């Protein structure tokens, strides 16, 4: 049944591609266009594959837009990332920045001027040349005040936008107000086709351009695939971009696959059923389905790959904000006591959380960066393994013990140690973790109430009213530690335990601030690494937050595909090389 279906699909897709070629996509080459041999394609190593076939994926929800600049959530960006490329790209295995549309780059000695050289003969998916004008146009759009977008923040240095200048058709110069190490991270942003979008920018309609009702031919890209069709609520079909800028070692243009198909499956529960029935080639495996799928690996002709931990982190943090008027001063005193927080870190059974909440598919977390971060993760941080006895000793040394024999511990002034942990009710895993933590702390004699509330109420409490005691939450992570500034710098709005400080409240917060500022202007990779290692050590030692776990991701993929190299950055990060065996 499954094989038949796949055969059928592949045949259908091939028919589709052929139909398209004959209807003019490959129309006679215009004389102005550079011929293929002049194009400097990027060669990628791997098995030599063969052309054809499609890979079927499942998406939980529809894309909301195909506009790379205004897209803000993953169901859109996941599709968009197949259609576009940036000046540089991140290698999915080494996590280093590598040349993409830009063939090479150089920096002046003051570290402020970067020169990027584009590959020769780059073409958009409609065959028109991709030049420095498109790159300049892209940054003009990003910094257009009428177009609010998060890339503008990433590419601003101390609030000043980067300056871009066209040197010639193939060369772009970028100037920053001071040396800016995270620049390459920002330059992975998609480059836009000027000839398709200039009009809508001028008319002030860019924000609603390339919405989901756009005809696919109008969306012109430079990534491995182009949009072929989108049927709301059903599927997104992406087909090969014949002008993609990568080739295999034999000089054949990539990608090998004819296309990718995303089927919209709005219900997580029915995804494994669909995968098992052969209606999809890839499944993100949840802990609860792991054992069932593992048994079927042979019969279903697929392999489960451990992609490693995710980038986000789950943590428990406490309100230490001196400006939080509604916070009981006694509680603030406990929370501000490092020994108290360390005791709590020892009291939480992370292994228990991993086995009960994540069915084993998670790893303990000890510091602010996930171990998925190959480049910057510091592997030798102090750990706080589950040790209730040690927790009890730490608490006693810090003056918290049961003074009146009621089973609960009191502080030195006789106040019973009790507080409320809030978390967002929408996330079942978080609520489950909260219950485990509550039990763990209860066993130490701390009276904990768990209050799962809606995400929006939670944010209002954290943000506006500061009316909270302890909170269990996860934050979106990134590979570039600098993008966590808002969280870890004392002036950050998201430095929630004591946000937006005008001057750092403690000596260690001042050190963290300095590290972030220095690392941002340090272009030397090893020096940056040393700085970010130090920041992780300080955080793990001072423990402003109790780190919990990071879920690991597992993907099940059919065995009929070649060149699969699943890595932390995704199961299909090298999609251009994947082929049907």
């Amino acid at each position, binding site marked *: 049944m499954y094989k038949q279906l796949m055969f059928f699909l592949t045949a259908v897709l091939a028919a589709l591609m052929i139909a398209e070629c004959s209807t003019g996509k490959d129309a006679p080459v215009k004389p102005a266009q550079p011929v293929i041999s002049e194009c400097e394609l990027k060669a990628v190593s791997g098995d030599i594959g063969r052309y054809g076939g499609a890979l*079927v994926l499942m998406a939980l929800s*529809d894309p909301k*837009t195909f506009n790379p600049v205004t897209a803000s959530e993953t169901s859109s960006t996941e599709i968009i990332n197949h259609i576009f490329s940036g000046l540089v790209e991140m290698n999915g295995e080494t996590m280093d920045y590598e040349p993409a549309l830009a063939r090479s780059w150089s920096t002046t000695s003051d570290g402020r001027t970067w020169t990027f050289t584009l590959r020769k003969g780059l073409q958009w998916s409609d065959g028109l040349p991709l030049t420095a004008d498109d790159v300049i146009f892209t940054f003009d759009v990003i910094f257009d005040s009428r177009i609010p977008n998060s890339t503008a*923040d990433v590419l601003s240095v101390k609030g000043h936008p980067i300056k871009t200048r066209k040197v010639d058709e193939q060369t772009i110069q970028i100037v920053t107000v001071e040396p800016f190490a995270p620049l390459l991270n920002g330059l992975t942003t998609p480059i836009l086709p000027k000839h398709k979008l200039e009009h809508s920018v001028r008319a002030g309609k860019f924000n609603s351009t390339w919405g989901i009702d756009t005809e696919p031919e109008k969306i012109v890209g430079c990534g491995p695939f182009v949009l072929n069709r989108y049927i709301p*609520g059903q599927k997104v079909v992406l087909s090969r971009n014949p002008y993609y800028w990568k080739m295999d070692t034999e000089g054949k243009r990539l990608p090998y696959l004819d296309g990718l198909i995303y089927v919209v499956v709005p*219900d997580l529960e029915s995804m494994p059923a669909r995968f098992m029935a052969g209606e999809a080639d890839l499944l993100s495996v949840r802990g609860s389905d792991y054992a069932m799928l593992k048994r079927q690996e042979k019969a279903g002709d697929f392999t489960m790959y451990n992609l490693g931990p995710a980038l986000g982190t789950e943590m428990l943090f406490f309100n230490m904000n001196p400006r939080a008027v509604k916070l009981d001063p006694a509680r603030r005193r406990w929370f501000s006591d490092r020994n108290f927080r360390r005791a709590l870190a020892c009291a939480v059974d992370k292994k228990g959380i991993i086995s009960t909440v994540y069915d084993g598919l998670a790893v303990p977390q000890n510091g602010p960066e996930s171990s998925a971060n190959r480049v910057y993760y510091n592997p030798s941080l102090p750990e706080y393994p589950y040790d209730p006895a040690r927790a009890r000793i730490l608490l006693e040394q810090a003056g918290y013990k049961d003074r009146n024999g009621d089973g609960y511990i009191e502080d030195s002034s006789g106040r019973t140690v009790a507080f409320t942990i809030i978390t967002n009710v929408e996330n079942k895993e978080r609520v489950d973790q909260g219950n485990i933590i509550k039990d763990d702390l209860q066993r130490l004699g701390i009276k904990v109430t768990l209050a799962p509330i809606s*995400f*929006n109420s939670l944010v209002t409490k954290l943000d506006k009213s500061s009316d909270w005691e302890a909170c269990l939450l996860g934050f979106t992570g990134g590979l570039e530690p600098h993008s966590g500034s*808002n969280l870890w710098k004392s002036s950050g709005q998201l430095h929630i335990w004591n946000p937006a400080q005008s001057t750092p409240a403690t000596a260690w917060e001042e050190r963290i601030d300095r590290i972030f500022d220095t690392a941002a202007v340090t272009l030397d990779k090893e020096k940056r690494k040393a700085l970010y290692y130090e920041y992780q050590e300080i955080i793990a030692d001072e423990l402003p937050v109790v780190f919990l776990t990071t879920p690991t991701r597992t993907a099940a993929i059919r065995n009929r595909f070649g060149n699969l190299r699943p890595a932390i950055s995704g199961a299909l990060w090298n999609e251009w090389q994947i082929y049907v065996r």
Partner: protein
Amino acid sequence: MYRFIIRRVLSAIPLLIAITLVSFAIMQMAPGDFLTQMSLNPQISPQLIEKLRVTYGLDQPVHIRYLRWLWGVVRLDFGYSFAYHMPVIKLIAQRAAATLLLGLSSTIFAWGIAVPLGILAAVHRNSWIDRLTSILAFMGISVPTAFLALLAVFAAARTGWLPIGGMHHMSYEFMAPWQQFLDLLRHLILPTLVLGIGMLAGLMRQVRSNLLETLRSDYVTAARAKGVSERVAVYRHAFGNAINPLITIFGYYIGDLLSGAALVEIVMAWPGLGRLMLDALSGKDIYLVMGSLVISSIMLIGGNLLADILLAYSDPRIRYD
């Protein structure tokens, strides 16, 4: 009759305004707005969120926003979805057809079976057929639809007889028209069954009890005494009067056509309004929610009006003028 219709349509206007006012107010009372979701992402600056808030007009006071929206609706502009950067009406139009199709097919299925079974159960009261349909009806009423949908998905996956979900096969675009039609029918079977069973169960009980009541009334006894056959007594004399409450119920079903299938749609990947609306509601994409609410309200009010008109035709005792 026409004056009645005009009066009803006019009186629907203040009703609609009241509905939108209350729902707008309720959505405002819950904390946070569309941009709150972004505020805990370290990569998005608070300045950007403020900028977006201004762009979306979310910085304006509630009453201004409501009045602006209402003025838009008057000019048939239902507003703009924040998540999709697109007019709400276009988004709804993209998906309404699928929902309507499922709604209609399950309604036809439910009524087509419920009415004859209900009559059978009433006529043969306390017989085995009455008992059996009662048991089935109670089962149908008590099993939650979403659970039934999950069961259907797993049954389809196990047996491979019917598609696991969705509305079209992956290669739908390349089929001949008759193949496309058959493909659509195959995909319709399970969701129609799942959605229809809940409706059917309740309806059947309604038909049964209404008919039983009229069968017990004096004029039916009189007809029987005159010596008409049981058949004529049931179908000519009793049934016509027993369907009055059903026509009213039918009006409500029309109102439910667009919104009644959300859960089934989500579980069975039916490309209708379900997921769109759920995401809009949880993400506080407020104008999208309001847009679908207005349309559902219009359908409900229209359905009731239609039911009243049908009543006037079916029952000569009812006069509106």
